[in-house]
């Protein structure tokens, strides 16, 4: 057993784990970003359903956010990873293929994260929509904007502005949640760290390295969202 070498995990030299860790970091970012945007689309639909849907649509959206915020994310990931085979295998058999089919780990993971974060997106976007001042909408109608133009020029930009802090929180959540996808075998940061820990027998070193990578990503993106927040709220009065 060699000594405690954190530098070895990040080293790009011979025997270093740098390239593998870098690739895994990109995978984490890819799956987190995909999941975040899937969630944003679901959230936009959910918020729309809660704001202006019929009673049945509202009830469905309420049920969705209640359920998804009340069950563990790991369970949703299992559902997508294993459950997809229950749907896809008979479908593949119908088309004449034989054998066992399931969603690729990346797709299953990104969809699971999207569905989970969609519930949070729904609440954030809905709250942001209601904090848009009604006077802004009245002004838009008063200057003769059509509904779609007012939606595009007034509602969307203002809603996004108010939603920005909440969206930043969701991103941090999604980033951390992406580590759960390691259970499906997708080689992202945590899975790569497990592989490294197993083959070098230095679990602490590798999991510490994983923790550092997550810490760096979340700090950099946290700083970026804070910058974006102050940029987009520069027109707002501050006390």
């Amino acid at each position: 057993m060699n000594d405690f070498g954190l530098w070895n995990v990040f080293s790009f030299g011979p025997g270093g784990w740098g390239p593998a860790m870098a690739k895994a970091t990109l995978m984490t970012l890819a799956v987190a970003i995909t999941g975040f945007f899937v969630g944003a689309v679901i959230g936009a639909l959910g918020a729309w359903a809660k704001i202006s849907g019929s009673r049945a649509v509202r009830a469905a959206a309420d049920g969705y956010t209640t359920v998804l915020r009340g069950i563990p994310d790991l369970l949703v990931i299992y559902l997508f990873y294993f459950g997809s085979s229950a749907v896809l295998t008979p479908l593949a058999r119908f088309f004449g293929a034989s054998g066992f089919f399931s969603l690729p780990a990346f797709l299953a993971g990104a969809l699971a994260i999207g569905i989970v974060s969609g519930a949070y997106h729904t609440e954030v976007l809905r709250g942001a929509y209601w904090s848009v001042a009604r006077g802004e909408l009245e002004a838009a109608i008063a200057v003769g904007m059509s509904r779609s133009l007012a939606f595009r020029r007034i509602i969307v930009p203002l809603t996004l502005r108010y939603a920005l802090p909440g969206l930043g929180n969701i991103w941090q959540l999604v980033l951390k949640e992406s580590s759960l996808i390691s259970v499906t075998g997708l080689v992202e940061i945590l899975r790569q760290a497990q592989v490294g820990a197993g083959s070098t027998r230095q679990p602490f070193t590798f999991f510490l390295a994983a923790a550092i990578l997550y810490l760096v990503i979340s700090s950099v993106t946290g700083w970026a969202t804070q910058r974006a927040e102050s940029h987009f709220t520069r027109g707002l009065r501050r006390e």
Partner: protein
Amino acid sequence: MDFAFLLETFLRLLPGVPLTLQLAFLSVAFGIALALPVALMRLSRIWPLVWTARAYVFVFRSTPLLVQIFLIYYGLGQFPELRYSALWPILREPYWCAIIALTLNTAAYGSEIVRGGVQSVPHGQIEAARACGMGGPLLFRRIVLPLAVRQALPAYGNEIILMVKATALASVITLMEITGLAAKLISETYRAIEVFIVAGAIYLAINYVITRIVHVLEHWLTPYLRPAPVPAASSRGEPA
């Protein structure tokens, strides 16, 4: 839908409920006990304490819980000093590793909630207490803490729900709580959707009960927010 299978699944998952509740309860209890001193450190004006608390909260809030669990369960075995120490019988057990990781994680979030609660105590209340001659620990115990608890309770209720959900991660380090049993059942039967429905329903039921308990607690702690009793009025509590 195959109700016989759903019922069988329910009976197979039920033995996992006590472990889930135990993990959640112990980590929340230990978490509160740790969150309070961390929040006080963060609020003290002694900079080494402030920075220790800040660093702790920053590290545990910016890394995934699963990484923290792995660091404690798999990682600590890397150090022979620990493996041969008196602590090893505890650190060897996945049960205690899960509780330690969950506790450290929830205490970081909890300390921020407590800090928010303490900072929300109106200054006038503290002035009034000082004018009555209270000071130091007495003022904290009688005035600041009760008001802070009332303020922080809704947010802490959310944190408890998050902890119940987080106990699912203990299944990754071999603990057979609800999610662990569900994963085992899925790999035996390949009926992920049915198992998911049952396991999800159990978690929802647990979280619903916890939400109600927190609501009752909130109602009980905020008598001054309730409308004065009017004859024949509905007995609905004030929303938080």
